[in-house]
């Protein structure tokens, strides 16, 4: 084995006629601090410039879809938690509403309100992580701990209502797993009051930081048509100026009753669809989420939200595609039932997977530091990419 990377003698070196250069292939990940999990990107670089970036996925493949075919309808719910593990509530919701629509089940009002509240809280928690880790990608460490401080308060609320801090298994067919404990509503409202001023703090330290803007504006622009053709959805698509939010465009649960705005990127700091826009959409969406939570809690009906559906349900034969808006985008569950106790097929249309696919299209020509910024702005969760 050759001991060193330097030739034994310098006289072996062949000096070419003209200096020849070639591109360098680097494996970025799966053990890399800013690939947000076990993503591997094969880079071909010319100095600091990237010629091509090819995502390699599958390091976290857990056979979710195959599992789902061999367990009962209810048992799938904890598995959906583990798809996008930082927005579990939103994943539960999509799958459960799909089944309920297939079964034509009515859900009581209180449960519907609670579902919206926990989903929006989880959206805030997820966007907070997106913000913090994005700062980390750009090189600012402090905002990361600020957002975790505030996310902690959301996790406390979730712990109180569902008993878990990360994988909640809270939204069940026909309702929710437990009714909200006494005083929970007030605590959520208290959190909303606490949280709104904090957004200004994030803006001061990160959003409007000159260096941050220099690093993110005009970088990694996804034109709207490119985004749409790659199936990008969620904040990543809205950052490109496309007004597409399933909570408005294909309402589920009781989202059609609330008054909120769909945030779209306007190219405030650079071009429409750059990384700063995608980042900004997330910041602003948190404000909208707080609005929805306030409205839902205002009209929170009395009663018991606990589901009353038996454990062993049989879903009528048929198929249904249920799509919901998670913090990452359009999460689709394509459910096929043959009328038995177990699903015949559950196919997941993963937003993070589709969002990641656009990387190949926009990466060529950017610098390594920009690629990190682009991956961060797509806000992928590898648990969902690989399923």
């Amino acid at each position: 084995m050759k001991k060193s990377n330097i030739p034994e003698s310098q006289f072996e070196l062949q000096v070419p006629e003209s200096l020849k250069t070639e591109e360098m292939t680097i494996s970025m990940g799966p053990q890399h601090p800013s690939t947000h999990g076990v993503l591997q990107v094969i880079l071909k670089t010319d100095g600091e410039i990237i010629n091509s970036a090819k995502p390699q996925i599958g390091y976290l493949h857990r056979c979710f879809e195959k599992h789902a075919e061999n367990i009962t309808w209810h048992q799938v719910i904890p598995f959906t938690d583990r798809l996008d593990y930082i927005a579990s509530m939103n994943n539960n919701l999509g799958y459960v509403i799909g089944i309920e629509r297939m079964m034509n089940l009515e859900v009581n009002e209180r449960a519907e309100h609670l579902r919206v509240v926990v989903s929006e809280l989880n959206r805030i928690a997820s966007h907070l992580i997106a913000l913090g880790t994005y700062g980390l990608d750009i090189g600012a460490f402090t905002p990361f701990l600020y957002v975790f401080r505030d996310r902690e308060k959301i996790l406390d609320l979730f712990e109180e209502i569902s008993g878990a801090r990360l994988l909640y298994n809270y939204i069940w067919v026909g309702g929710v797993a437990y009714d909200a404990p006494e005083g929970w509503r007030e605590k959520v409202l208290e959190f909303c009051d606490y949280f709104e001023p904090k957004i200004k703090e994030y803006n001061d330290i990160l959003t409007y930081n000159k260096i941050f803007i220099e690093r993110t504006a005009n970088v990694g622009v996804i034109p709207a048509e490119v985004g749409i053709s790659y199936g990008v959805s969620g904040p990543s698509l809205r950052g490109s100026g496309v007004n597409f939010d399933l909570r408005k465009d294909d309402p589920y649960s009781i989202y059609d009753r609330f008054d909120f705005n769909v945030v779209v990127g306007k190219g405030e700091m650079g071009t429409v669809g750059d990384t700063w826009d995608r980042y900004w959409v997330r910041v602003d969406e948190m404000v909208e989420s707080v609005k929805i939570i306030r409205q839902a809690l205002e009209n929170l009906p009395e009663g018991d939200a606990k589901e009353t559906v038996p454990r062993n349900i049989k879903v009528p034969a048929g198929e249904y595609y249920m799509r919901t808006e998670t913090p990452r985008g359009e999460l689709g569950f394509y459910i096929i039932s043959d009328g038995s106790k177990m699903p015949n097929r559950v196919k997941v249309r993963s937003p993070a997977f589709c969002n990641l696919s656009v990387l190949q299209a926009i990466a060529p020509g950017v610098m390594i530091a920009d690629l990190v910024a682009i991956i961060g702005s797509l806000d992928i969760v590898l648990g969902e990419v690989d399923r």
Partner: protein
Amino acid sequence: MEPLFQFFNNLFPFISDWPEWLAHTVVGVVTVLLLFGFVALFALFAIWLERKISAHMQDRLGPMEVGGWHGWAQPIADAIKLLVKEDIIPAMADRTLFKLAPVIVFTAALAGFAVLPWSQDFIPADLNVGLLYILSVSSFAVIGLLMGGWASNNKWSLYGAMRAASQMISYEIPVALALLAVIMNAGTMSMRHLVIAQSGNILDWNVFNFFPLTAVAFFIYFVASLAEVNRTPFDLPEGESELVGGFHTEYSSMRFAFFFLGEYANMYIVSAIATTVFLGGWLAPFEALNFIPGPIWFVGKAMTLVFIQMWLRWTLPRLRVDQLMYTCWKVLTPFSFAIILLIGLWKVL
């Protein structure tokens, strides 16, 4: 070495009875040990300080357990941990260069301490080109970084090393030019005489000389020195989120610790240069405060600058490579040239 020798002579008169070779050797060795001790202690203290500062800026406590009061012994525990850790050298690494790199980086940092004027008398070597010497030896470090990055045989390390080389060599220029603005006025490059020329009160310090020209030079020097020592927002060579660990990705154990030690020693050196050249070195800001010994003023001023470096690190994001070069060549360098020109004109008129 004359002032230093006199300093020791005053402290211990019996030294003058010794033969010259013995006295010089003893004084030299003692001084080196003192400085090495200071570097080690400073690094430990600075690591603790950095952790506490970052913690308090981030709404947390930082180390609180080891040693009792606010975890003061945490860096000692860290140092012991680094000492006893396994020393890994990658199989395909160039072993000689790999081992040599941290030594060079640390030596370059330590060599800079030779000309720092701690007080009127205690200056290890009062060279008449002290400032030039310190600039030259501190640019030595880049060879070490380049060696380490190359020898690791890791592409990320190589990137880190290349960035370090281009960044540190580029930023030498604004650093040197900013200092030149002051040297032109003082007419000396001896660290000791640079300070003596500033005696008086706070308004005689170079930073307030030719106001606001030298103040701008000071600012340019400070910004460029951040890049010299690879601190945020110019920490590209080791930018964790991009290059994993940059040039020291493959280093572990004590070799890593030496890179670390070198970085902290360099932080102190650039602050000390700024103190000497711009902030009046060991001098008190007002005559009334002269009873406080010089070394305390010197270390105090340097530590204030070190604190500002830490403050910036935990506040700012990181620049991109092209923006880094832009800042150097299109902002800092032209401005320092302009300042030199203006000060020259001022002097002539």
